[in-house]
Every structure is written in structure tokens, then in C-alpha cells.
């Protein structure tokens, strides 16, 4: 039928079977619609992600299908909690979707497990890559191959209450940890807050981000290119940062010890309720804390450079969540079309998804050119960003140095535990970091 005609004279056995099947199916349908149906037979792919605002994704997926009638997407949001655990079960049962979200922290592990396939050389990938922030691009490749397009990328930010500083008699925004300490002490003395610095230390996905950011901002490193730990002795930055944190909590009493039980969102919610003067958070918290609908202190919160031991001009850590495709997908092209649309451009060449997320939820974009986009600029102005600081932090951000080690998550969680133990004063910063470095070496050795 339609199929054989379209293929001219070449008529393989497989096509014969396909055609026969279609004919058989077609007999049951109305004859008129059959021809066009058979010709356009869309590829169907399944697509999953953790259910952050699934209704928004649904609308966007429908928009994609309208622009790409040859691809039918079956979108199944998975629960936000235990997403990775569930995906493990899916992979194990070989029922994984064709395309899905991946956290950069899990990328190495998932590639090694054989669950993902590289997308190098896919149509127009280079075009996207050329416009991406370095830290995003870094985060999406593993052992020289690229595995995804960005769902979103963001950096860790340091924010403060602008109304507090004048009250404490401080005119300069702190840029180093030492200045931060003095400012916080002044705020404490002025009775503005018992613990001016609020930070959640409960183990969670983003639990190590502040530590990374402070080490980066101080010009330090934790790992060399071979994922060999160089802390705490060869590079002493991390030790000094951790010592500062302990002193801030226990000696100067400017860092809230109750932070040990808070995760990212809890610390954020407490900050927006009016407690604390300084905090660090994921980038998309900024528009939220300045949104009167969500925050008691809307309009008073401003971005500052992530503080380090000295003012090096280096930015914080940044991360990426990406769209990737299954190594087993039978619809590679269709999956790529979706990845290109969701993590890149729509039919009109607009970064539609990234802009949509940013406008609606302040979820960070990964494309440099969007910095100059009029819509984006408006959002940033509305949120009250100090644009100079913002641009500085994003353009100087770095991906975590051993993020691509397949053992990253193990090391990350272990190190979070160590830092908590230090903050409980149950071990010294040096011992904790030594334990963490030892763990890294062991894991690395296991992977030899």
C-alpha cells in the first residue's frame, strides 16, 4: 500500500511484513484515513523525569508534538522523591523510558552501568554547545563523550538581607570569609540576629554545594584531573574553609548550629520567613526570596559574590540536570528531536523550554545568549538581581572536579557526613578531610 509505493521498487521482506500488518490493521479501520496514517506513522517514544511541575512539562511536550508531528511522546512523570531509586528498578527490569532526566551527580555511574548513550555528532548539537556556559557543558560529558542536553543549569549563590548591613553599621558587602565573619559579628552585636548565617547541612543532593563553592571561590581545589584528591595537605584551602565553618558555628557563634537538621528547602523556607541574614542556596531560590507571594523579606535580598578565603574572582560551583537517552532506545532520532527541543531550541530557533522554566520558576538556563534576551532580562530585573554580580558568578562558575567519577555520589555523601561530624565537634577538620580523601582514594582504587 502506501508504504510500498513510497519505497518504489525496493521491497524487502521486512517491509512486506510491515505492510501486511498495516494492511491487516487497516482493514478494520475506515479506508479513507488509512493512507495518510501509514505514511506518517509517527515514532512513539516514552519520556520521564522527576515530577517537578509535570503539568508544565506536559504542555511543553504537547507543544513539541505539535511542532514535530512525526514524533509521539508518551510523558510519564515519576515521583520527585526516590527518582533515582525508581530509575534503577526500571533499568534493571529493562523498562526504562527512551529519554529521561539525569542529574550530573549520577551521570558517571549511569554511563558506566551502560544505561545511557552518547549523543555526539547528533544533528545541530554543536550549535547548542557553542552557546553553553562552560560549567554546563563540562557537566554533561563523561570520558570525552557528551550524553545530554541541559534541562537546567544553575549555580550556588550567596545571598544577604540588604536592610541588615546599614543597621549593623556596615557599608561594604563582604567578599571574603573574614569580612563575612566581621559583618556577621556586627549584625549579631547589633541584635539583628542570634545566628546571622543560616545554612542547612542535612545530607541531601545539594548538601556539599556550599563547601565546593567556598573552596572554588577561595581559588582552591579538591581533586586533580585524575580524580586524585589533593586535599587537605597539598591544597590546604578546603581545610581552612572547614576550620572557618567550625569556628563560625562554635567560636564566633554566627553560623546556626540548628542547620545540621535542615536540608536545602527547609533552610530556604526559614530564611524567607525572616530568620538569618546570610545564606547560600541554589540559584533559583533568588527570584523566590524576592517574590512577595512566597517571602516575608521580598525586595530586601541581594546577591553577593560567593565568599572565599580571599577575593579571587572565581565563581561558585554550578551544576546541570540533563536530558539523556537510553542506550536501548529503538527511536534514537525521535528521542534526539525531543532532547534538542527540550534542552535546546524549538522550531523557531528559540530556547523555548529554558525560557519557560526561567520565567515560571527561576530555574536556571544554560545558554549564554539568553543573558541578553529581553524576556529574561525583564525577569531578572523584576527579581531584583544585581546583574553585575549575577553575570560574574555564572560566567565564573565551575563544575565539581570529580563529578565525573562514577563514585562521585558515594564520596559526596561520605564527605557530607564527615562535615556534619566536624560541625558536631566530634572530629577535627583535618581528620574529617583526611577520612574523606582516604575514601576517595579507596573508591578510585576500586575502579582501577
Amino acid at each position, binding site marked *: 500500500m502506501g508504504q510500498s509505493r513510497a519505497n518504489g521498487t525496493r521491497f524487502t521482506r521486512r517491509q512486506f511484513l510491515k505492510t501486511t500488518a498495516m494492511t491487516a490493521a487497516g482493514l478494520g479501520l475506515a479506508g479513507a484515513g488509512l493512507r495518510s496514517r501509514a505514511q506518517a506513522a509517527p515514532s512513539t517514544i516514552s519520556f520521564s523525569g522527576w515530577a517537578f511541575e509535570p503539568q508544565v512539562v506536559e504542555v511543553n511536550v504537547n507543544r513539541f508534538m505539535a511542532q514535530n508531528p512525526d514524533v509521539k511522546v508518551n510523558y510519564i512523570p515519576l515521583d520527585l522523591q526516590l527518582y533515582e531509586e525508581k530509575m534503577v528498578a526500571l533499568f534493571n527490569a529493562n523498562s526504562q523510558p527512551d529519554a529521561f532526566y539525569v542529574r550530573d551527580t549520577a551521570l558517571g555511574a549511569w554511563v558506566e552501568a551502560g544505561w545511557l548513550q552518547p549523543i555526539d555528532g547528533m544533528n545541530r548539537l554543536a550549535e547548542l554547545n557553542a552557546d553553553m556556559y562552560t560549567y554546563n557543558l563540562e557537566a554533561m560529558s563523561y570520558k570525552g563523550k557528551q550524553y545530554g542536553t541541559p534541562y537546567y543549569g544553575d549555580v550556588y549563590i550567596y545571598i544577604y538581607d540588604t536592610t541588615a548591613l546599614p543597621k549593623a553599621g556596615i557599608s561594604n558587602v563582604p567578599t571574603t570569609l573574614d569580612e563575612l565573619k566581621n559583618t556577621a559579628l556586627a549584625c549579631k552585636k547589633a541584635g539583628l540576629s542570634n545566628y546571622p548565617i543560616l545554612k542547612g547541612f542535612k545530607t541531601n543532593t545539594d548538601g556539599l554545594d556550599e563547601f565546593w563553592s567556598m573552596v572554588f571561590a577561595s581559588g582552591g581545589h579538591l581533586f586533580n584531573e585524575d580524580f586524585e584528591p589533593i586535599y587537605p595537605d597539598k591544597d590546604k584551602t578546603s581545610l581552612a574553609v572547614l576550620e572557618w565553618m567550625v569556628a563560625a558555628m562554635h567560636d564566633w557563634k554566627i553560623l546556626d548550629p540548628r542547620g545540621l537538621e535542615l536540608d536545602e528547602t*527547609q533552610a530556604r523556607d526559614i530564611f524567607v520567613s525572616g530568620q538569618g541574614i546570610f545564606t547560600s542556596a541554589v540559584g533559583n531560590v533568588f527570584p523566590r526570596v524576592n517574590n512577595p507571594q512566597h517571602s516575608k523579606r521580598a525586595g530586601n535580598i541581594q546577591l553577593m559574590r560567593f565568599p572565599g578565603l580571599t577575593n579571587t574572582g572565581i565563581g561558585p560551583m554550578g551544576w546541570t540536570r540533563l536530558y539523556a537517552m537510553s542506550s536501548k532506545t529503538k527511536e534514537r532520532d525521535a528521542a534526539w528531536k525531543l532532547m534538542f527541543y527540550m534542552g535546546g531550541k524549538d522550531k523557531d530557533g528559540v530556547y523555548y523550554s529554558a525560557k519557560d522554566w526561567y520565567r515560571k520558576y527561576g530555574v536556571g538556563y544554560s545558554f549564554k545568549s539568553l543573558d541578553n534576551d529581553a524576556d529574561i532580562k525583564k525577569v531578572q530585573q523584576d527579581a531584583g538581581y544585581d546583574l553585575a554580580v549575577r553575570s560574574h558568578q555564572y560566567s565564573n562558575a565551575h563544575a565539581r572536579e570529580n563529578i565525573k567519577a562514577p563514585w562521585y555520589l558515594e564520596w559526596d555523601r561520605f564527605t557530607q557526613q564527615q562535615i556534619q*561530624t566536624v560541625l558536631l565537634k566530634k572530629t577535627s577538620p583535618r581528620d574529617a578531610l583526611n577520612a574523606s580523601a582516604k575514601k576517595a582514594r579507596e573508591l578510585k582504587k576500586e575502579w582501577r
Partner: protein
Amino acid sequence: MSDRNIEHVAKPAAESGGRTKRLSAPAFAFLLNSPALLAIALLVGYPIAYSFWISLHRYNLKRPSIFRFIGLNNYVEIVSSPEFWSALRITAEFTAMAVVLVVLLAIVVALLLTEPFPGRGIVRTLILVPWAIPPVVNGLMWQWIYDSNVGALNGLLMSLGLIGEYRGWLSDPTYALLALVSAHVWNLLPLAVILLLAALQGIPSDLYDAGRVDGCNSWNLLVHVTLPWLAQPLLVVLVLQTMYAIRVFDVIYVLTAGGPGTTTTTLTWQTFLITFNNLDFGLGNAYAYTVSLITLALAWIYFRLLYRRGEFET
């Protein structure tokens, strides 16, 4: 005790029952058990066997190419790691506190609820409230109660003048475990109460009559009639509660994530991390089986203690 002894002279009911007349007792027993066994075998038979088999292998999902039989090496690795002993100690503390509290409270509450007093019916219904709250919701609820900045517990203690400033209950290594225990106990008390209550209602009153004739006071009746009668259901309660305590997951997941430090990292939480964070299925399953063995051992001890007179018969 006459009722309980009847079983000793049990003759196969099957022989006197209508359509099952021709079946022997063992055959009839097998028939009665087959649906339950079938359901269990079809669903969890494979997972249980798989889990054990994997525990004997070196198998990390991140390295699918390396799948090697290593015998008991994973178990050796577990018992030689300090993490295991730390988690074991924390699990033991948690379990001991949780089980003792639940069982004692449950006995008291169940005895109380067998006595008539105005409003007993209401209390009997209310006691079920905590049970109706899914543990994950229970975790969230207690999180808000313990919250160090806006929590109800801090607010209450402060207004009663018991504390001078808001405390971080979950960030304090001593209180964190206690906080988990009390959230867990609150959630699971009803189950124990219900089981004991049901058993208490089954006590034939002639037992008490006999006791009274022998001149027992109420304390003696409790010790010599009520508690021995409760031995079997108590065993169920003990095993169930021990199992729940050793496997506690949802509350830890929500409240502390094993922290601060590793002060609330139990064996089950450790199993979870190794299996899903590290994707080390070999070691993770060995951990799971270690937990199983510990649970079994405890169950065995309970059996021994509660039936030391050899009167236990299944």
C-alpha cells in the same frame, strides 16, 4: 487453661467435615495453606532468592561486566567495616528503646482499655489515630513538631518555661535518635494495642473465676492469668515491633537522613545507601541479609524466652 490444652488431643477436623471427609489431616493442612504459600512464592519467592544469590556476588550496577561469585566475602567485608558496627550499635539502641517502649505502653493501654470507664469507646477509637497516619506523613508531621525554628515542641517547652531558647532537637546527636524513637513509637503503638486488646477480650472468664477461688488478688491475676494468656500475642507483637524497628526507613528518610554525622545511620539506612546511592547490589544485599539474620536471631530469642517451659507449640 483447659481451652488451650484441647489442641493437644487434636484430632483431624477434616475427618469429620463434610466435603473434606476423605482427606488426611496433613493433606487438608496442605490444602488450607496452599493459597497463602502460592501467593507468597509467586510474588516474593524470586526476590528473596535473588537477593540472597546476589549477596554472594561482587556486583555493582555501575560495573555490569563484573559479576563474580565470591562466596561470603561481602559478609566478611561487612563485619570488618567500622561503619557496620556503628550502624549496628545505633540500630540496637533504636530497636531496644522502640520495642521496650511500645510493648510496655501497649500492655498498659490495652489493660486500661479492657476496663470499663466513661468514654472508653472513644479512647479505643482514638488510639487508632497514629496508626492511620502513613509513616512518611508521620515523618513530615514530626518534622514540623521538632523544627528548631518554628516547631511546636520548642514553642510549647518555651511557653512552659522549660527551655530558654529554641533547640535543634534533630541536629543534636543525643536527641536526634530519641526524637526518631518517639515519632516511631507514637506511630506504631496502636498496632500493639490492638493485638493485645483483641487477645485480652478472648480470655475466658472462668480463668479469672478459678483464680479468684484460689484467692488471687488483682495483681496475682494479672501475673498468673492475664500475662501468661498474652504470651502468644505478645510474641507476635514483639516480633512485629522488632521487625518494624530494625527496618525503620520512612521516618529516617524524612527526619534526619541518617545524620547529623552518622548518629542516626541504622543498618537499614546503610543498606539503602549502599544499594541505591552506591549501586553496590552485592554488598547491599549482603547487608539486607545480615539485617534478616539479626531479626531472625531476635525472634528466636523471643520464642525461647516466652516459651521456655516448653509449652510453646505452633
